[in-house]
C-alpha cells in the first residue's frame, strides 16, 4: 500500500516521514491488533448514541481517527482516567498498557492497514435496556432542560420526588441521560427537607443552577448529609451493585437531587434524565461520608489570591474506630490543580487513597475501590488540595485572574476529598458519626507562615518523578518558605554532609535527613536509612521554629533512578565514558567500552548505609542485586556501589556496552532487585 507523501506530523508520526511505511510480517493490523484494543477499552463510549463525538467500531472509523487516536493515547488523555495508578485498585479502571499504546503508534506509522478481516473480532454487543434488570424505582424528569449549543460548561441541579413512604436502601443506580453527548458526569444526593423542590424551576427552566447550592441544602439535615448521598455517574461506567453489605440510604419521602455537568458541544439539545434505582435490604453497616476539608471545603476558608499558582489547603482527620473505605472522589472547581488523599495507618503504612495530579473538572468520577480498604482505629487521613489561580491555568474563569473565595457562584471555589466508609463493627456507627460531625464543624487550620510543600512537589532527585521514597534516595522538595532566600549549598565536614543548612531541616519520622542544598523554594535531601523496612514515612520541613504539615509518603525498599545530564529526569544520562570524559552525542562511548552510570534509589547497603557519609574509606554496596540493560540487551556489570567521595545514596555503576548495541542514543535501565529505573534515559553510543 503506497503512502501519499505528506507533511511531517509531530511525535510518533515522525517515523513515517523519515522511514516510510514499515512493511514486514509483524506490522500491526486493525483486524488482529487494533480492533481488540478498541473493543476492550474504547467503544463503550465511542459508538453511536453515546457521549463520545465519534464512533470507533469499524475499520473506516479507526482509519479516519487513527492519527488522533495515536496522539491521544500516547498522552494518556484517552481513555480518560485521572487518578495516579499503582497505589490502590479501583473498579472499572481505564487505561492502556505501554505495549498497547506502542501498537497504535506502529499501526499509524505503517499506514493503518486493515489486515485480514477474517481475523478481526466481532464488535461487542451492548445491552440497550437497563443493564441490571428492571429497576425497583424509576424516576424521570417531567420536562426537558434545554442545553445551549456553546458557551461555558453548565452545572444544573434537578429534583426528583420519590413519593416513598418507607426508608429504602440502594445498591445500584443507573442513569439514562437523553442528551448523551452533553452529559459529562452526574452526582446524586437525597434531600429530606424539600428545599431543593422549592428551588426547582424558579428561573423558568427545570432544576436550579449552581455548583454550590447543594452544600447549603444538605446542611439542613446534617445526619442525612453524613450518610453520603447516592454516589456518582460518568459515561462509560458499567452499572454495578455496591459491594455486598453496603448500600446508599434513601429516606422515606425524600427527593433525589442530582447535579448534572453539561459540556456544550456546538449543537443544542434537550436533557430529560431517567434514573433507575435498585433496592436492597437494610445493610448491616451504614455509610458515613468523610469530607476533608469538611463541607465541600467551606471549613478551609479557601481564599486564593489572584495569580497564585500553588495555593494549598490541607485537612486531617483521625478515625476513632476501625472502618472500611469503599469509594472516594474529589470535588474542586475550575482552579483545581491537584488533589491527594492519604491514610497513615497505626503501623506507619501510608496508603494513597486518591491522587490526581492534573485536575480536570470535566472528569469527576466517583471511584469505587476494587476491594474494601481496611483503615484501623487511629488511621490519620490527610486531604490536600492545590489550586492554580494564575493566567497559566486554562480553566481560570477570570482573565486577568481575580481573588477567589469559597462561595456559591460558579466563579467561586470549593473543594474537598470525599471518602465513603462503613464502620467495621456496626455498633461503632454513633462514635464514628459524632467524630466526623465534630470535625466537620471545626475550621481547618490555615497553613499560615509554616513551610509549605505539596505532595507532587516531593520528587526523586534523579528522575523528577513523585511517588514513593526509599532509604538513601536523593529527593528534591519544591515549595515555599523552606529555607534561605539565597541558595545555600552544603559542604561535607569530617566526611559527612550536614542535616541542618541555612536554617532548614528535613525530618522523616523525626529522623533528620542530610541536606545537599536549601533555599526558600527548593531543597534537596537524602532520605535517611532509618526508613528501611518501614511501610511509610511522615516527612516534615522545619525552618527555625516553624514546621510544615507532615506529608505522608509510601516507602519502598528500592526505587532506582538514573541521573540525567540536564536534570530533567529523562534524556541523556549523567554518564561518563571509560576515559572519564562526559558522555554526550558529540562524545559518544565506543562500542563494547565501559560506561559509568550515576543513579540513586538502590536502597539499603552492606555495610549499613550511614546518613550523609561520604564514600572515602568504605564503599557500601546495595543489598539487592544490580543489573543493567542497554538497548534492551543485558550489560555486564563490573561495579555497582558507592561512588568514591560522593554521598551515601548516590550509586556508581560501571557497565560494559553489550555487543549488538546500535549507534546513537540508546536506552539505559538499571534494575535493582526486580525494580527498574525510569524510562527515557539514554547513553550516546558511537
Amino acid at each position, binding site marked *: 500500500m503506497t503512502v501519499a507523501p*505528506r507533511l511531517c506530523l509531530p511525535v510518533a508520526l515522525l517515523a513515517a516521514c523519515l522511514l516510510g511505511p514499515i512493511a514486514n510480517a509483524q506490522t500491526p493490523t486493525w483486524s488482529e491488533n487494533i480492533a481488540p484494543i478498541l473493543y476492550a477499552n474504547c467503544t463503550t463510549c465511542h459508538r453511536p448514541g453515546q457521549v463520545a463525538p465519534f464512533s470507533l467500531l469499524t475499520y473506516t472509523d479507526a482509519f479516519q481517527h487513527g492519527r488522533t487516536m495515536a496522539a491521544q493515547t500516547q498522552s494518556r488523555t484517552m481513555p480518560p482516567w485521572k487518578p495516579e495508578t499503582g497505589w490502590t485498585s479501583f473498579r472499572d479502571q481505564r487505561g492502556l498498557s505501554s505495549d498497547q499504546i506502542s501498537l497504535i503508534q506502529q499501526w499509524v506509522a505503517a*499506514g493503518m492497514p486493515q489486515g485480514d478481516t477474517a481475523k478481526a473480532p466481532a464488535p461487542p454487543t451492548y445491552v440497550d435496556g437497563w443493564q441490571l434488570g428492571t429497576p425497583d424505582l424509576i424516576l424521570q424528569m417531567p420536562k426537558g432542560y434545554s442545553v445551549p449549543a456553546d458557551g461555558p460548561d453548565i452545572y444544573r441541579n434537578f429534583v426528583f420526588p420519590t413519593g416513598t413512604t418507607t426508608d429504602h436502601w440502594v445498591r445500584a443506580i443507573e442513569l439514562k441521560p437523553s442528551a448523551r453527548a452533553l452529559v459529562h458526569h452526574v452526582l446524586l444526593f437525597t434531600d429530606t427537607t424539600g428545599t431543593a423542590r422549592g428551588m426547582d424551576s424558579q428561573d423558568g427552566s427545570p432544576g436550579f443552577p449552581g455548583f454550590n447550592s447543594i452544600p447549603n441544602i444538605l446542611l439542613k439535615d446534617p445526619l442525612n448529609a453524613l450518610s453520603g448521598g447516592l454516589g456518582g455517574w460518568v459515561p462509560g461506567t458499567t452499572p454495578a451493585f455496591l459491594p455486598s453489605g453496603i448500600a446508599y440510604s434513601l429516606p422515606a419521602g425524600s427527593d433525589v437531587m442530582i447535579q448534572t455537568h453539561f459540556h456544550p458541544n456546538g449543537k443544542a439539545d434537550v436533557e430529560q434524565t431517567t434514573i433507575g434505582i435498585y433496592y436492597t435490604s437494610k445493610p448491616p453497616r451504614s455509610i458515613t461520608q468523610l469530607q476533608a476539608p469538611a463541607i465541600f471545603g467551606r471549613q478551609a476558608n479557601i481564599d486564593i489570591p489572584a495569580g497564585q499558582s500553588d495555593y494549598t489547603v490541607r485537612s486531617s482527620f483521625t478515625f476513632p474506630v476501625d472502618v472500611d473505605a469503599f469509594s472516594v472522589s474529589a470535588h474542586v472547581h475550575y482552579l483545581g490543580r491537584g488533589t491527594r488523599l492519604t491514610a497513615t495507618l497505626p503501623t506507619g503504612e501510608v496508603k494513597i487513597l486518591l491522587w490526581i495530579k492534573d485536575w480536570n473538572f*470535566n472528569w469527576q468520577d466517583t471511584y469505587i475501590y476494587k476491594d474494601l480498604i481496611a483503615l484501623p482505629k487511629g488511621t490519620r487521613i490527610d486531604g490536600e488540595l492545590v489550586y492554580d489561580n494564575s493566567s497559566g491555568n486554562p480553566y481560570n474563569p477570570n482573565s486577568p485572574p481575580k481573588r477567589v473565595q469559597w462561595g456559591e457562584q460558579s466563579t467561586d471555589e470549593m473543594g474537598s476529598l470525599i471518602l465513603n466508609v462503613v464502620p467495621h463493627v456496626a455498633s461503632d456507627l454513633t462514635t464514628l458519626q459524632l467524630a466526623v460531625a465534630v470535625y466537620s464543624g471545626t475550621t481547618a487550620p490555615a497553613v499560615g507562615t509554616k513551610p509549605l510543600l505539596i505532595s507532587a512537589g516531593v520528587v526523586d532527585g534523579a528522575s523528577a518523578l513523585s511517588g514513593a521514597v526509599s532509604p538513601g534516595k536523593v529527593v528534591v522538595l519544591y515549595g515555599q518558605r523552606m529555607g534561605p532566600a539565597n541558595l545555600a549549598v552544603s559542604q561535607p565536614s569530617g566526611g559527612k554532609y550536614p542535616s541542618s543548612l541555612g536554617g532548614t531541616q528535613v525530618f522523616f519520622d523525626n529522623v533528620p535527613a542530610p541536606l545537599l542544598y536549601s533555599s526558600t523554594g527548593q531543597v534537596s535531601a537524602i532520605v535517611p536509612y532509618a526508613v528501611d523496612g518501614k511501610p511509610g514515612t511522615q516527612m516534615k520541613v522545619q525552618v527555625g521554629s516553624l514546621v510544615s504539615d507532615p506529608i505522608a509518603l509510601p516507602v519502598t525498599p528500592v526505587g532506582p533512578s538514573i541521573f540525567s545530564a540536564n536534570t530533567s529526569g529523562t534524556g541523556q544520562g549523567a554518564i561518563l565514558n571509560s576515559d572519564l570524559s562526559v558522555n554526550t552525542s558529540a562524545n559518544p562511548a565506543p562500542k563494547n567500552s565501559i560506561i559509568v552510570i550515576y543513579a540513586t534509589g538502590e536502597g539499603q547497603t552492606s555495610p549499613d548505609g550511614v546518613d550523609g557519609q561520604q564514600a572515602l574509606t568504605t564503599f557500601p554496596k546495595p543489598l539487592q542485586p544490580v543489573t543493567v540493560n542497554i538497548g534492551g540487551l543485558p550489560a555486564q556489570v563490573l561495579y555497582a556501589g558507592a561512588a568514591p567521595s560522593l554521598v551515601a545514596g548516590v550509586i556508581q555503576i560501571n557497565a560494559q556496552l553489550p555487543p549488538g548495541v546500535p549507534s546513537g542514543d540508546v536506552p539505559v535501565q538499571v534494575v535493582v532487585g526486580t525494580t527498574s529505573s525510569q524510562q527515557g534515559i539514554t547513553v550516546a553510543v558511537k
Partner: protein
Amino acid sequence: MWRLLWLLAATFSPLPDMTDTQGHRQKLTQPDGKAAVIFFVTSDCPIANYSAREINRICAAYGSHARCYLDYVEPDLTPKQVSTHMTDYGHGDYPAFIDGKQLLVKALGATVTPEAALVLPDGTLAYRGKIDNQYASPGVRRTQVTEKYLRDALDAVVAGKPVAVPRTNPIGCFIPPVRAGK
C-alpha cells in the same frame, strides 16, 4: 529576474477550483478584492464542532472583506449530511466542499480540524493555524478565549497592515491520509 519569478512562484499558491455541495463551481481567488478564508472541518471532530458558531460569527463580521468556505475532509459525507450538519451546528450560508481527495488540504498545508487558512487575492497565505486559543490542548477547553488569531489576521488585512502572527500550531483532530480509492 529568474529569482524574482521564483520568489513570486513560491508565494503564489494557486488554489484549485472546487465544486461545492450545491453543485456550484467556486473559484477561491476572485478579482473582487476579497480574501478567502477556508476552514478545514470534519463533521465529528468535537473541536471543529464547538468552533462552528465562532466561524459563523467571524464570517458574518468580515463578510464585506472575506469569502468563507468550509472544507469537509471526509470522503464518505453526502451533500445532504453536510447540509444537516451545518444547520445543527450553526454554520452560516457559506459554500462547503467535500474534499475526499484533500485537494485544498494539500494546497494549503492543513494538518488538523479545525484549521483556518486566510488567502489574499494575490494568492498569499496570510494566516494559517487555529481560529483562537479556545483549546489549550485537545482535551482542554479554556474557560475564557484570550487570543483571537484569525480575527487579528483579518483586522490586519483589512487595515492593509502585515499580519503580526501569520502561523500558529492548530489544535484539533488530525486529518487522516487520503484513503485509497477515494
